[in-house]
């Protein structure tokens, strides 16, 4: 009797917790003010870097639009730059050809037009998934770019449309060399868009998106109009990307066909993954971190920067699958507008097979080092000739170094992915 009672009370507890969670999700938490405070602080701390600051805000908005479809609805696309570009060119052509240079209405128009294109495109391609969908999104963006080049009389081709003029903001705020006006403009636009996205995500509509992402068959089974929902969110996301593109043109007073580049779509995806998908603030963190790192490291060494980004990606996938935000959660054990934190403590239980793994990594590292040693010699890179001369010595040094690095990385990996024996989960 008491067993049944405790079972049912456990059940009631769980149900209440779940209901409570759903009801309280959208309440504003004090932590949500942080990103905005940081943005405002940057204005006062780095007044000379505000042109860069505006670009960061624009990227955040672009990443936010991608988060809607990638993070919340689960649509993998590598062609989102298409909508960014549509928005960018809308304001440019409106200003140039129609003489319509009022900035705020330009933003709105860009968003609407991009969203309309999103409806049409989404209607056709969202029936597919996986590689098919990916290729279709890539093809769409590429075709848009090629068509733009075909009509370079309209688009200015790769040299673009320079010298675009936009009216002062709200009739009074001029654009200055230091980019101050642009920064506040971008921040305000981001705030408005974000408010909208936040409402959307916490609405029942937003919840259906999560359902579609997690188990689309079940959604069909309960009669949810999946395709309609997907097209809707795709269109909204396209509109937001269009607004970001329009901001880009307005703050740069210049646009070229490179806004449609595949690189651009790939870059924004990397930013989003870095920050953490399926979270409202993932784009903020990801875009800001990426752009700041890029700015800092590419000044030091552009080659090193590309290598660094590559490593960052590999490490993110291996160790931080939920992005930096997920990592922060694990460390801090806080809740940040998304999923519950996994606060299991980490402790490495050393097993014999770990030695085997270390040995294998050392071997791999050594082989790679061996090949690299040859490459250094063949490519004539002046890497070690000051200290170590001769092919055998160079190759030996690289082999040993590679082995050490390989073992080190694996040890680090083992440390990070182990669980305590109590949890019972294998590493």
């Amino acid at each position, binding site marked *: 009797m008491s067993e049944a009672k405790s079972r049912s009370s456990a059940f009631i507890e769980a149900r209440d917790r779940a209901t409570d969670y759903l009801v309280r999700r959208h309440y504003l938490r004090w932590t949500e003010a942080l990103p905005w405070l940081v943005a405002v602080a940057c204005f006062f701390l780095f007044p000379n870097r505000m042109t860069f600051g505006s670009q960061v805000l624009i990227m955040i908005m672009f990443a936010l639009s991608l988060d809607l479809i990638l993070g919340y609805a689960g649509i993998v696309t590598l062609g989102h730059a298409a909508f960014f570009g549509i928005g960018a060119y809308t304001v440019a052509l409106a200003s140039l050809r129609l003489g319509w240079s009022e900035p705020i209405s330009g933003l709105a128009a860009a968003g609407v037009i991009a969203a309309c294109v999103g409806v049409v495109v989404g209607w056709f391609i969202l029936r597919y998934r996986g590689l098919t969908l990916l290729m279709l999104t890539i093809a769409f963006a590429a075709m848009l770019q090629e068509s733009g080049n075909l009509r370079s009389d309209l688009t200015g081709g790769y040299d673009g449309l320079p010298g675009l003029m936009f009216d002062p903001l709200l009739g009074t705020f001029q654009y200055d060399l230091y980019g101050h006006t642009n920064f506040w403009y971008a921040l305000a636009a981001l705030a408005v868009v974000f408010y909208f996205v936040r409402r959307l995500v916490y609405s029942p509509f937003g919840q259906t998106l999560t359902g579609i992402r997690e188990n689309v068959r079940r959604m069909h089974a309960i009669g949810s109009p999946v395709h309609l929902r997907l097209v809707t969110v795709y269109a909204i996301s396209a509109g937001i990307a269009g607004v970001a593109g329009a901001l880009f043109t307005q703050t740069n007073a210049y646009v070229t066909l490179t806004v449609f580049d595949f690189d651009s779509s790939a870059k924004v995806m990397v930013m989003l993954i870095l920050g953490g998908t399926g979270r409202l603030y993932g784009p903020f963190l990801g875009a800001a971190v990426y752009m700041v790192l890029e700015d800092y490291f590419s000044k030091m060494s552009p080659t090193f920067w590309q290598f660094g980004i*590559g490593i960052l990606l590999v490490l993110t*996938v291996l160790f931080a699958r939920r992005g930096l935000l997920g990592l922060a959660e694990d460390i801090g054990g806080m809740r940040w507008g998304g999923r519950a934190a996994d606060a299991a403590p980490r402790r490495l239980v050393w097993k014999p097979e770990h030695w085997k793994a270390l040995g294998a990594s050392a071997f791999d590292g050594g082989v790679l080092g061996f090949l690299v040693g040859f490459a250094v010699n063949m490519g004539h890179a002046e890497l070690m000739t000051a200290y170590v001369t001769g092919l055998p010595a160079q190759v030996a040094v690289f082999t040993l170094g590679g082995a050490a690095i390989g073992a080190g990385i694996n040890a680090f990996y083992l440390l990070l992915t182990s669980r305590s024996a109590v949890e019972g989960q294998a590493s």
Partner: protein
Amino acid sequence: MPQFANIAVSILFDGLAYAMFLFITAVGLSVTMGLMGFVNLAHGAFAMAGGFIVVSLTRSYGIDFIPSLIIASVTIGLVSVRFEKRLYRRLYKSTDLEQVLLTIGLAFMAIAAFTYFYGPIPKSVPLPHWLEGDVNLGFRRFPTYRAFLIGLGTVLIAILWFVFEKTNIGAKIRAAVDNRRMAESVGINVDRLFTLTFAVGSGLAALGGGLAIQLFGLTPSFAVLYLVLFLIVVAVGGLGSLKGTLLAALVIGIIDTGGKYAFPVAGNLFIYAITALVLLIKPTGFYGRE
């Protein structure tokens, strides 16, 4: 020859050579994606690495072009096995997105590393004399190198077809692509099979990279620049299908060449248009399975 027929022959020939390059490089990607469902975007990086090995072997060590190609393919094939065992294997159960990110990250690292060692200046290879110039094939002359590409491609296709259709291993691979669980339950060691196909596929990619130098020049960016092209061939042909990859390579190679001949203004529009068209009508590609 009458003018129109002459043009048609030229387009077919050039398109065929281009298609052979696409096939050789992309077939590995198609089979591994079909067999294991693993999206390996570092495939282009393997091709690029193979190309650079050929450059080094021919320029710095004076080895002939053909032997260099063989050495490069074998080396990359072996290296890729280690990658597969140590890195990729962890992510077989992961989402497509994570696989995409991991392999793109590896590709970036490879590009940066090769830029550091070889510099960003495009490279070319010294060809043996018998591959230069043009050759008389009876009714007209054709560039020798492209004739070589077509010949080599045909031989490789024949070998691959024979292995796939007539040998035990080929049957096992086809079985595993069709239905992995069933294949495992009749005792086929799919993991080892995958390692083998992965190695061969990467080796072929390296071969393609080496062959591409004469066509496009080689820079480290090769790894991502032509990646979209390989993905298109794989998607349009259908994952895991030899026939499909070949057909897709032929269609894309010939239509692209013909399009560039007849309507050069359109640029790459034709390739993307074909891709969109095929995928909208048959989402799994020519010979893909659901």
